[in-house]
């Protein structure tokens, strides 16, 4: 069986360094909350609705508390206090706080113990809601069965959620195992989650709870019809990453794009904000057994795939360390990487084969997410189809777990029905034709592939050593990842980061951290 030599001492050292890097950030996370985290808590308590301007109640509620500089107590504190003061339920409590005439103050005779006691039922209900969704999904998976790896993952992006639902079913019909609905341009920068079904999105549809439901329904139908479980994916990223994670949890999504650093690097979201948000989002994801897909593939769209291969690996170690700290199990940790090498480079295929095999071996239990070429796609659809075939061959040979299929119309338009069909067809062909290739071959000792794997691992440990020494905050501000530089106080969403007070109340987080039922 094809294996690259792996110096486990170096791998262990990478993990040790990544753990230290994440621990440093985790100390910060544990002392802070954000408007996004608090809105998620409110949503988990079942608080819903929007006003006539489309502003969600959870935003009105949290912003009002934040305006009084009281968010460090946690939204749960105020909701619980409102219950103690006579609100009949949590929804009513939220409305009183959000729209009430009197200003919210921090004072009151209510004790933390009283608050926690009055919220107990609400917390139970919140967790049950998530757990039930998870159990329904797991039962359905067990009953219908899942396809072999690599799972074939495709994208739909019509901008109209009802068309997306039709396309999702078509894709499943054509053999897709996972369907991702592309999100409308720049939703990551909205500090609220839009409400309702999207019928005229630009570049995609919004991640909304209603949209999640519509696509889930279509894929449930497809699952029953085609006799195999079809998975649904969306994006838990941007300023609302934890709110979206919650909505995905209760609407039975199977995967979420979720990364500890993507928002910082590629959306210019403040790093303090992102680190706190990613943690809470991953706590919800861990509970729901959703598979995350991390975003290292993006690094190679800005940086060179040969020069920066080790940054992908280093980032995978860091993403793993952060995910472990949020309770995400290895089998739900879909670390990402991509075939973004210059196709005209001599032995480009060998270099990608080496990297894919290296990642496969270092993260043996992880559902590795393998992303297709995009950067060197030009609009020559015929050549593009061949380019994708080489990517597929690496995917099957090195046993990647989740493969986002390349589209020959990449760089032209979002995939047409036919484009997706042809991509699925050629992928099926290559997966079948080369199913056991990886088991049959061995790599030449000290050849190009082995040597490359050694180089990348060694460069990764060097980078992690530097990042550990300087801390992730400084490292990012010096452009350690993806050639992108971001500062501690730069980027969007910093105003929504708040230091937790000593009496911070967040019983949902406490339960998630405690792992209790």
């Amino acid at each position, binding site marked *: 069986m094809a294996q690259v030599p792996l110096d486990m001492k170096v791998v262990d050292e990478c993990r040790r360094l990544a753990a230290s890097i994440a621990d440093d950030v985790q100390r910060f996370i544990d002392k802070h909350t954000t408007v996004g985290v608090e809105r998620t808590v409110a949503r988990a308590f079942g608080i819903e609705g929007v006003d006539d301007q489309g502003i969600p109640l959870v935003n009105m509620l949290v912003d009002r508390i934040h305006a009084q500089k009281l968010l460090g107590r946690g939204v749960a504190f105020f909701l619980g206090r409102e219950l103690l003061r006579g609100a009949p339920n949590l929804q009513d409590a939220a409305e009183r706080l959000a729209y009430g005439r009197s200003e919210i103050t921090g004072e009151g005779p209510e004790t933390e113990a009283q608050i926690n006691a009055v919220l107990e039922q609400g917390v139970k209900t919140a967790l049950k809601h998530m757990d039930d969704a998870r159990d329904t999904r797991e039962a359905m998976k067990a009953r219908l069965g899942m396809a072999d790896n690599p799972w074939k993952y495709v994208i739909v992006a019509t901008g109209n959620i009802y068309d997306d639902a039709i396309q999702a079913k078509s*894709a499943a*019909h*054509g053999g897709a195992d996972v369907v991702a609905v592309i999100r409308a*341009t720049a939703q990551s920068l909205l500090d609220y989650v839009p409400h309702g079904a999207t019928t005229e999105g630009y570049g995609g549809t919004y991640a909304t709870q209603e949209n999640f439901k519509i696509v889930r329904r279509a894929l449930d139908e497809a699952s029953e019809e085609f006799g195999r479980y079809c998975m649904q994916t969306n994006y838990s990223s941007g300023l609302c990453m934890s709110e979206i994670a919650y909505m995905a949890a209760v609407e039975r999504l199977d995967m979420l794009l979720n990364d500890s650093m993507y928002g910082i690097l590629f959306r210019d979201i403040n790093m303090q904000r992102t680190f706190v948000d990613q943690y809470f989002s991953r706590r919800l994801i861990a509970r729901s057994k959703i598979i995350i897909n991390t975003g290292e593939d993006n690094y190679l769209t800005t940086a060179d795939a040969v020069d920066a291969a080790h940054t992908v690996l280093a980032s995978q170690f860091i993403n793993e360390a952060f995910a472990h700290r949020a309770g995400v199990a290895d089998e739900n940790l879909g670390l990402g990487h991509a075939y973004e090498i*210059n196709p005209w480079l001599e032995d480009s295929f060998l270099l990608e084969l080496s990297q894919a095999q290296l990642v496969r071996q270092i993260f043996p239990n992880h559902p590795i997410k393998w992303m297709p070429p995009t950067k*060197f796609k030009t609009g020559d659809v015929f050549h593009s189809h061949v380019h994708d075939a080489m990517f597929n061959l690496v995917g099957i040979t090195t046993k990647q777990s989740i493969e986002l299929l390349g589209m020959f119309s990449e*760089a032209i338009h979002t995939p*047409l029905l036919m484009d997706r*069909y042809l991509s699925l067809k050629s992928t099926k062909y290559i997966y079948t034709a080369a199913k056991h290739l990886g088991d049959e071959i061995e790599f030449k000792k000290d050849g190009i592939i082995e040597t490359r794997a050694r180089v990348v691992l060694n460069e990764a440990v060097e980078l992690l050593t530097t990042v550990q020494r300087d801390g992730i905050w400084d490292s990012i501000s010096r452009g350690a990842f993806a050639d992108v530089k971001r500062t501690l106080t730069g980027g969007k969403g910093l105003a929504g980061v708040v230091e937790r007070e000593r009496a911070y109340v967040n019983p949902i987080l406490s339960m998630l951290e405690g792992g209790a039922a």
Partner: protein
Amino acid sequence: MTLIPKHPHLLRAYGDREGDGMVQMTFTLRISPGAQAKEVAKRFAEAHGLREPLISAMEECGPGYTYFVAYGHSIHHVDVSEVDVPEVKMEDLDKHDIEERIEHQIGRKVVVVGACTGFDAHTVGIDAILNMKGYAGEKGLESYKWFDAHNMGAQVENEALLARALAVGADAILVSQVITQRNSHKENASALITLMKERGLRERFVMLLGGPRIDHKLGLELGFDAGFGPGTLPKHVAAFVVQRMMERKQ
């Protein structure tokens, strides 16, 4: 087979013989595969001007949808002598050549400011040209040692763009227009030129217009030095700016 006598100005699609008009076309129809579907596809191809169409593939690509590959002899031709497209005239230089030319012939960094103006919120074009990331594997102007590139992003007012260009001493201004609803791309762009002319600033900058629906002809019509359409690489923009600066110097 020859559909029309050869004529140097009349261009037909070329398969493997002059004048055969051979083209390939793929399309999807909402119909299930079968004999009827094949005939439908044939007629569809004929309606597009393909003679003797051959439906070489017919497969169901979704429930109730079929994709077809058709080959046929296109009856159409184009008279080349009637087509007049002004092209941006410049040398084909790569990044290295451009950097060298700036270093030796200009001797200082070339400053460019770019923005999507008006309501346009789509920075994909301007980012492709200016940002480090670039496009199709070609890094953007930010990555050039001899360029100082300022990307103002989206929804920038013409006034603000001009003010920044003056503040940083720009040599060139890049305007990107993606949205074309109600010709907003033309209006925004020509409003900027009008504003510059009023202030006597038009000749101070090399003016470039870019976007998916922009071509050189339109760029010139709207008063720019050049217009760049889809597929433009950062090096094309860089080469044009440098070349125009040299021309002005002389």
